[in-house]
């Protein structure tokens, strides 16, 4: 289980997780898009040796996984836990990931860039995530020579990452802003100040379960701390707006709100078939009900765990066999029922 699913961080009533990702490339190797399979293996070995054979404490904390040697369901589960990207999985024959024990750090090798350091923490912990990623970057840099240009900074395969190579993001749950319709204005404003808003599984995915991913778009011209601070400031404002909207809903429509939450809870606790769409919608209601202390006795980490356990690959992995869409919907309902039964 990944750290962000197991523990709760600051502001966890709204911020599910915080993430920092650094893109780095190594000199003397073409970028992954132009890399042969044998060269890609050389690079994996280089990165692996730096971490696992080096003189730092990282050596006992990390384990390496070559994606080629993993069953497809395992790879997909890592994507569902946000530990690797879909792009890394799509080139399994060339890629690898180094994971630490509590699954808060993943070092992806041969994604779009040679190295992508990701630090993923529960709640609102952007600065902490940056500090960790920064340190790991320093360790890697001691034995790897990065592609770096005096003017342009870290050179990356796609010019949208050039410079700092940093992508800072927060995963936020904004049900009240969605219900009250303010969300569109906020999303618009965010994009005007250089932030991108996406669905929970990254670029091009839908907004499901009122969960949004907000990240910086620009990587050049500002330093890492400024980029992180900018996202932090905006996120703090969004948190405040969401809390205000929640209070407004509570004072103006309390009974309707409670009714909706208890109905969603009832369905989750009793349904025999749950599609992923319906599940995410109901889970958003339950998450909000817990945050607003309308429904008690359920801890938020259970909600985060259910969100991942109800994903297609995770369902099939836990069932120990491939499942059709219908079978998955049935299994999803069973798992959710059991999770909620254990609590109440």
């Amino acid at each position, binding site marked *: 289980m990944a750290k962000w699913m197991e523990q709760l961080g600051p502001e966890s009533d709204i911020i599910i997780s915080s993430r920092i990702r650094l893109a780095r*490339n190594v*000199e003397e*190797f*073409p*970028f992954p*898009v*132009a890399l042969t399979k044998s060269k890609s293996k050389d690079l994996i070995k280089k990165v692996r040796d730096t971490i696992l054979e080096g003189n730092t404490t990282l050596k006992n904390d990390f384990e390496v996984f070559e994606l080629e040697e993993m069953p497809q369901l395992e790879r997909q589960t890592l994507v569902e836990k946000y530990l690797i990207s879909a792009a890394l999985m799509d080139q399994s024959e060339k890629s690898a990931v180094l994971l630490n024990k509590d699954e808060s750090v993943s070092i992806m090798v041969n994604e*779009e860039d040679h190295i992508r350091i990701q630090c993923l923490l529960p709640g609102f912990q952007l600065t902490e995530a940056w500090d960790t990623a*920064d340190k790991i*970057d*320093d360790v890697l*840099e*001691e034995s790897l*020579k*990065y*592609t*770096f*240009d*005096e*003017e*342009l*900074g*870290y*050179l990356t*395969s*796609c*010019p*949208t990452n*050039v*410079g*700092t190579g*940093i992508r800072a993001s927060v995963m936020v749950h904004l049900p009240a802003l969605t219900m009250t319709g303010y969300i569109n204005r906020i999303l618009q404003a965010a994009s005007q100040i*250089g932030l991108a808003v996406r669905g929970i599984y990254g*670029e*091009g995915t839908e907004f499901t379960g009122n969960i949004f991913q907000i990240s910086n778009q*620009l*990587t*050049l*011209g*500002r*330093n*890492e701390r400024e*980029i992180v601070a900018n996202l932090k400031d905006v996120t703090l404002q969004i948190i405040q707006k969401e809390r205000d909207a929640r209070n407004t809903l509570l004072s103006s429509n309390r009974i309707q709100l409670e009714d909706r939450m208890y109905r969603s809870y009832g369905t989750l606790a009793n349904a025999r078939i749950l599609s992923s769409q319906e599940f995410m919608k109901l889970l958003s209601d339950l998450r909000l009900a817990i945050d607003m202390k309308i429904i008690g006795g359920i801890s938020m980490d259970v909600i985060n765990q259910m969100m991942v356990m109800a994903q297609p690959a995770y369902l099939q992995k836990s069932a120990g066999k491939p499942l059709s*869409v219908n079978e998955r919907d049935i299994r999803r309902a069973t798992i959710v029922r059991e999770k909620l039964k254990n609590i109440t």
Partner: protein
Amino acid sequence: MICENCNKNTATVHVTKILNDKKTELHLCEQCAKQSEGVPFDTSFTINNFLTGLLDSIHDSPIKVDYIKTTKCDHCGMSYGKFKQLGRLGCSQCYNAFQEKLIPLIKRVQGSEVHTGKVPKRAGANILMKKEIKRLKTELEKAIRSEEFEKAAVLRDKIRETERQLHQDN
């Protein structure tokens, strides 16, 4: 129309196959079409495509000159045409090879062309020194202009010392 495969999503991809005079029709949703074999399907309109679409629209020249399409990166063999198609560069040398087009593009999407963030300690030691010299020189100019000659002398010595170090390292 509902997708014939998953019976769930709306069918947005319609395929008509004629094989040995036999006509078959297939109506699929985007997801199923991607997984289905024999259906040529590529709607991967990514940020990369979008980005490279901007490449040639930067210089609003009335005459389109395509000579740069033949440019190749000597180091990895990536052609400019291929970069436009993929939206990804083949190696760090590509930044030099396609500089003429790439720098305006970077300036346009990033709003800047100068990195001010982290510098790798090892690979960037020289760079840090060069940046320091640049900074000292601006200070020196300022000091001279405001006739603070004592301060200027200190700065001058600092510059000489840093330049000597840089020289040694090389």
